[in-house]
Structures are given as structure tokens and as C-alpha cells.
């Protein structure tokens, strides 16, 4: 029986989603290439968020990230015939995404009012962590506080780009070391080194701030002074 509470578009999209889920990626791609372009919507659904995040991490502007995401998915669609299945589809899409993002950064660099942030920053820096003698764990419920979410968000965006992207792929998107290396075009060893440095930088930057959000601290994490 047809669910009349749903629009034709919703039903079509739901059907397309179920249809694509029932097939493997290779079959879905073959059918899209044979003309069933509607299946592309479901194919890209799992990577919509990682693509936006990668572009936001690179461009640090929501509007640019969204525009670049649309351009990325159009390129993915137009180049679908070149996907050989040597890597996961998501890894391939993220490589295209990264190139698109770097292209946007280069365009920005040609405009003098927007200097290009160095894409490569291999400075060794100081990786001594923030030293403390006790740590009260912040539970996930603490993230209900917008101030805490903003604090974490700022810390990630402050990282030099090569560290930001490895944190995104490994810790946010949960890609494994080899997949991350494939997307970034670096060795698995470099992924581990960059991730270590990035996590140390985040620890050093965040820990002094996060102590204020810990349960039982003077400010408490319900936002009231206690």
C-alpha cells in the first residue's frame, strides 16, 4: 500500500536508498553509469558529512564549504567512470574533495585580501603536553554545553592544516591509517606522526580550558557557578 503521507519525491528517494543499500557499491555505480542517475543520491549519502567537514576544515567558512561540496559531488558524478575500486569509494571521494578544497584555497591566494594559509606546515614545534596531576573526565553529556562545543571546535580549527586534516580523517571520520594515508597521499608513518602531534597540540591547548567544564569544578558543567 502506498504511504500517501509522503511526497512522491520522498518515496522515490526512500526507494532509491533501499535499492542502493541492497546492492554493493560496484553494482550501484554500474547502474548509475548505465543511466540510473537517481541512485547517485543514495550512493553519496554516507559521505555527505565527511565531505562537508573536510572542506570546512580547509576553508573555515560554511558558505564556501557548502559551495565547494556541491562542486565536489558534481565532479564525483562526472568522473564516476574512472573509479576502479582499488580503494574504498569513500576514500576516493575524499581525495577528490581534498583537491577541490586545495583549489579553492589557491583561488583565495590569488586575491590579495585573503592570504593563503600555509597548506604545508611541517614545523616540529613544541610537543610537550599540558602537565597536570589530576584529570576529571568530561562525560559526553558535557557536550550539551554550547560553550564547550565551541571551545573544541575552535581548538581543531586552530591546528595547522596538515594536522587538522589528519584529525578529521582519523578521529572524526574514523578512517584507518592506510585509508587516511591514501586520501592525503602520504605514508602511514606520516599519518601516525601527524596524528600524534595534532593530539598533543589539542591536549596542550584544551586541557587548561576543559578543566573549567569538569563536573565538580567551580563553574560546573551545567553552566552555573557552584
Amino acid at each position: 500500500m502506498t504511504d500517501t503521507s509522503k511526497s512522491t519525491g520522498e518515496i522515490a528517494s526512500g526507494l532509491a536508498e533501499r535499492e542502493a543499500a541492497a546492492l554493493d557499491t560496484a553494482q550501484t555505480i554500474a547502474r548509475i553509469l548505465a543511466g540510473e542517475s537517481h541512485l547517485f543520491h543514495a550512493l553519496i549519502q554516507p559521505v555527505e558529512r565527511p565531505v562537508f567537514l573536510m572542506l570546512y576544515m580547509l576553508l573555515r567558512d560554511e558558505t564556501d564549504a557548502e559551495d565547494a561540496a556541491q562542486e565536489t559531488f558534481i565532479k564525483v558524478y562526472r568522473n564516476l567512470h574512472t573509479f576502479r575500486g582499488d580503494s574504498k569509494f569513500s576514500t576516493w571521494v575524499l581525495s577528490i574533495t581534498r583537491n577541490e578544497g586545495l583549489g579553492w584555497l589557491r583561488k583565495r591566494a590569488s586575491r590579495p585580501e585573503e592570504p593563503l594559509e600555509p597548506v604545508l606546515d611541517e614545523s616540529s614545534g613544541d610537543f610537550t603536553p599540558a602537565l597536570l596531576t589530576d584529570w576529571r573526565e568530561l562525560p559526553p553529556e558535557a557536550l550539551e554545553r554550547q560553550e564547550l562545543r565551541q571551545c573544541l571546535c575552535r581548538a581543531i580549527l586552530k591546528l595547522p592544516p596538515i594536522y587538522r586534516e589528519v584529525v578529521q580523517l582519523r578521529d572524526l571520520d574514523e578512517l584507518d591509517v592506510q585509508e587516511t594515508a591514501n586520501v592525503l597521499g602520504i605514508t602511514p608513518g606520516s599519518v601516525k606522526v601527524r596524528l600524534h602531534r595534532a593530539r598533543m597540540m589539542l591536549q596542550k591547548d584544551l586541557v587548561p580550558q576543559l578543566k573549567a567544564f569538569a563536573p565538580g569544578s567551580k563553574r560546573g558543567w551545567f553552566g552555573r557557578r557552584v
Partner: protein
Amino acid sequence: MKIDCKHVWQHISAYIDGDVDAQLRAEIDRHLEHCEICSAVMDSTRNVVVLIADDRIFEIPSGYSERLHRRLEAVFAKESSSG
């Protein structure tokens, strides 16, 4: 072999990912048992890694997916009409 604090710090990320061999893991564990500072550094780093992975940290703009699929539909339509 006894390891010092700096040695522990070099392996924090790999330790969290379970990417250290059994011998090194045992040495780090022994160090953590008596070093309050390294224990706090390890716990706080692990906590930071867990918190930043939460989907609530970065919100996707409202309507992002709908706008994306509308744009793609327009591309599909244009390309199918142009043959």
C-alpha cells in the same frame, strides 16, 4: 627497562590507538602506575580524542543535503537533455 616521562609522551597517541607492542605497553603501564603526571596526561588526551569525535562538535548547515541533491538533480536533468 625503565622509561621516563618524555618517552611515554612520545607514544601517547599510539598507545591510545592500541598501536604499541606488548613490551612497550607493559613498560608504559608500569610507568603510569606510579606517575601521576603521565596518568593525567594520558587520561586527558584520551578524553580529548573522545570529545572531538562527537558529531555535535561540527554541525552541518541546515538544508545542506537538500540543496546538494537539488543541485545534482539539475545537473542530471541538464546532462540527460543534452544527451
